[in-house]
């Protein structure tokens, strides 16, 4: 299961989580795969059976974005946001907030695509409203459609 090695997760500051991953493709393609809804739908899923069912992106500064993940059992969870910066192929910045606001306010996502010898290093940083919000997100693993275990979290907090 653990063919990780390549995915690095760090906490650069109290309010941030960053992920760094290298892809064997030039950055204009990685940028494309992050910004074309039909492509995004194919990979940006949650855990288990949560698939990205709705993906709308109005790719311009101030333009909206909308993601909805759907479970096989019919449950849905969604998030909305707005683009702050679109600089193909090296930078993408947007805000996002879950419909249920699990993260105590919106988060700011900054994605940097840097290329070296035909490979792209993706650095994806999420800035939360507070340290507590970040820790909660990390704990439940529910960043970006990874929103499975809200019930499990509730259980855990009860115990």
């Amino acid at each position, binding site marked *: 299961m653990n063919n990780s090695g*390549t995915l690095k997760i760090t906490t650069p500051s*109290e309010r941030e989580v960053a992920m760094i991953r290298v*892809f064997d493709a030039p950055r204009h393609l*990685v940028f494309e795969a992050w910004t074309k809804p039909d492509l995004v739908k194919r*990979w940006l899923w949650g*855990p288990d059976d949560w698939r990205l069912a709705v993906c709308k992106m109005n790719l311009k500064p101030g333009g909206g974005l909308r993601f909805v993940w759907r479970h096989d059992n019919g449950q849905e969870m969604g998030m909305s946001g707005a683009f702050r910066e679109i600089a193909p192929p090296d930078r993408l910045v947007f805000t996002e907030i879950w419909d249920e606001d699990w993260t105590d306010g919106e988060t700011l996502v900054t994605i940097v695509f840097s290329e070296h010898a035909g490979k792209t290093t993706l650095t994806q940083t999420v800035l939360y409203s507070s340290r507590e919000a970040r820790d909660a997100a990390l704990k*439940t693993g529910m960043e970006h459609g990874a929103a499975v275990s809200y019930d499990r979290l509730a259980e855990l907090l009860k115990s």
Partner: protein
Amino acid sequence: MMETLQALAEPNRFQIIELLRDGPRPVGDMVHRLGLRQPQVSKHLRVLSDAGLVDVRVDAQRRIYALRAAPLKELEDWIERYRRIWEGNFQRLDGVLHELKAKEKKRGRTKR
């Protein structure tokens, strides 16, 4: 778990945990390495101890701190879960990129 995360969320305490990963250390050694004052370090150690993250033993006049494995294991499990989700996503993205590369190559060929 909340306690573990809150204890670790403070950068200096996180540093202390990182230091202790290499093995038990006396307080004085950590004061030196962190560049903090002794009372500050002691305060952080107390929080970590209350959260069950570290144990202390007294050796002559020195207080030696060591990591307790269990709560950290729990935290690592959470991060591991987060990691697995994203690894799944990025592996699917690998597949998408492979396809885009092949398409681009094909387009390049037909253009010529």
